[in-house]
């Protein structure tokens, strides 16, 4: 494999790694507030000081609220705060396990570095976006695993055994396919109290997404199994006394790998988006825990949209994630089926 062919996988893996290291990569904790810096614009990195000298190490100036009514900030050039690496700051747990205090970059207090500005409580949008990626990425992976974990066996069994089993399973699949997913999730989530803790709510969300997502998988797997079971190698293994289960697992399932991996990568973004939409509506991850969805809710306000454009930056993280998954999906399809049309 050339580097170019590997690129999509590297990008996706990097994305997951970065989200795991969110605590280290972000200068602040997601819940850290600074009421003196609400809606502060992205901090400018300077290389040239007021005397006109150039510095190799970038530095920032402290932002001072010059107009509290209009929310305008001015830089105070009297003190420069150089950007430092591996600075000690608030403590967190790396990968949720190892207690640590050092962050990849930061500036000494009272200086502040907001790469993507701050929100109405003075929380760093960059840090919050980084933490938010953990929820979205983990959830997508779990929902994909669940839906394929159900869809693959169901499709195999329906296609291989046929008859009444097939009819029943495919009727179930049709039923699930007829459910407008987002509406259904809304209704079920609505039955839970609105102040349900985030973790059980997320677990339920994964469960529903998985239970809705298996149907399209099962349909395609069934169709492939139907044609695969007529092939000579299946006949041969049956003639040599192979059991049905053995044939399914050893001989038929491997042929479904290409579809499985490609489709898994291409459906993952839908699960990310479902979480974002629900959190946007206030039914997924709830404050103070950050999610790209609930961060975008705060941007939904004409004044914010007009003046504080950086509040939309979680959307860029979201976009990057979806691009990475789609890219991997396309790469997998080309890998398994080189004759497919590149698109």
């Amino acid at each position, binding site marked *: 494999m050339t580097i170019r062919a590997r690129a999509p996988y590297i990008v996706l893996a990097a994305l997951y790694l970065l989200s795991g290291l969110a605590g280290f990569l972000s200068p602040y904790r997601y819940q850290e507030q600074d009421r003196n810096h609400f809606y502060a614009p992205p901090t400018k990195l300077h290389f040239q000081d007021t005397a006109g000298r150039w510095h190799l190490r970038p530095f920032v100036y402290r932002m001072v609220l010059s107009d509290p009514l209009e929310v305008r900030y001015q830089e105070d050039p009297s003190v420069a705060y150089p950007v430092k690496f591996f600075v000690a700051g608030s403590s967190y747990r790396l990968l949720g396990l190892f207690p640590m205090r050092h962050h990849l970059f930061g500036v000494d207090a009272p200086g502040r570095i907001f790469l993507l500005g701050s929100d109405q409580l003075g929380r760093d949008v960059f840090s919050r976006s980084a933490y938010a990626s953990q929820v979205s990425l983990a959830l997508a992976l779990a929902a994909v695993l669940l839906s394929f974990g159900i869809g693959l066996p169901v499709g195999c069994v329906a296609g291989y055994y046929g008859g009444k089993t097939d009819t029943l399973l495919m009727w179930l699949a*049709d*039923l699930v396919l*007829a*459910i*407008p*997913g*987002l*509406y*259904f999730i*809304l*209704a*079920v*989530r*609505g*039955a*839970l*109290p*609105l102040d349900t803790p985030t973790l059980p709510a997320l677990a*339920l969300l994964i469960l*529903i997404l998985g239970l809705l997502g298996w149907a399209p998988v099962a349909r395609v797997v069934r169709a492939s199994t139907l044609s695969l079971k007529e092939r000579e190698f299946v006949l041969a293994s049956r003639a040599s006394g192979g059991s049905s289960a053995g044939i399914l697992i050893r001989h038929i399932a491997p042929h479904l790998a290409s579809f499985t991996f490609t489709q898994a990568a291409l459906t993952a*973004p839908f699960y990310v*988006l479902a979480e*974002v*939409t629900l959190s*946007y*509506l*206030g*039914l997924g991850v709830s404050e103070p825990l950050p999610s790209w*969805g609930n961060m*975008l809710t705060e*941007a*939904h306000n*004409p004044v914010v*949209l*007009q003046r504080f*454009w950086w509040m*939309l930056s979680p*959307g860029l993280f*979201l*976009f990057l994630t*979806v*691009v990475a998954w*789609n890219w991997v999906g*396309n790469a997998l399809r080309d890998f398994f089926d080189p004759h497919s*049309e*590149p*698109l």
Partner: protein
Amino acid sequence: MEVARRLLRPALLRLASSLLIVVAIVFLCHGMVSLAGGRFGDTWERPGWTGGATLGREELPWYAQSARWVGLAARGDLGDSLTYRRPVTELLAAAIPHSLALALAAILGALALSIPLGILSAVKRGSYSDRLLAAAVFVQLSVPTLFLALVALMVAARTGWFPLGGAGSGAGGSGLGDYLRHLFLPTLVLTARLTAIYLRQVRASMLDVLREDYLRTALAKGLPRMRIYFRHAFPNASHALITLVGMSFATVMSGALAVEVVMSWPGLGRLTAEAVLSRDMPLAVGGVVAATLALLAGNALAEAFLRVVDPRIQAEVR
């Protein structure tokens, strides 16, 4: 008689199975609610509210609740909304036309864009315009509708060219022009996504058709190119597109949910989302069922249309 055999019987079968599916979904809704730990009756408990007479507040198990719901729904009674204190059917009837207008406008817009662009892309395969369109499709499919809606709203807020959501200004203009002005931005956001989905399909189907011998004949005969592509090739490439349009009702409905909420478009998605947020379960269940019906209707319409367009398709009876 021939028409009846080809069109009516499959339609009736489909109707029967659709009804079964809707009933099953009602049971599923109630079942999931009780599984999730909430009792369906709980949300009825509201101080000072004595309505909801149609749906009992008594503690029925979920399957009995669902059976009751289905029985009442069969008589056209979906209960009363808790927040609006009006029949759910009335609220749905007010919201659905808005959703339908949005969906139709978006689908028509997407078809108008994707068919010529898709044909161009297939005919000039490998050219710069083809590659540019492919890249645009890839990027567009990766932009979440929710985010695009917010960006569109930002543009509207900054430029003032478009109204900031809603379906009517109330004060100034009213009537069709004003409605269309409000419809424009949500439609644009949905159209962008649908165009990408349709374009990919049109291109793929056209590439298949362009390999056929009869097109080489047409080319050899010296027919005008445009006539060949649009009149001879495209109709044969349109089957997958028709199915896709029918299926994209689902995409439109759930994509529209985000757009409707962001842009305050008074459609079905926004109504359902608000019902859930205000714990108005009768309205929420009504919204889910209405969305299900819309989805089934979309698929059925696409299939019926395909049967009319193409007599080769046999009535497949399952």
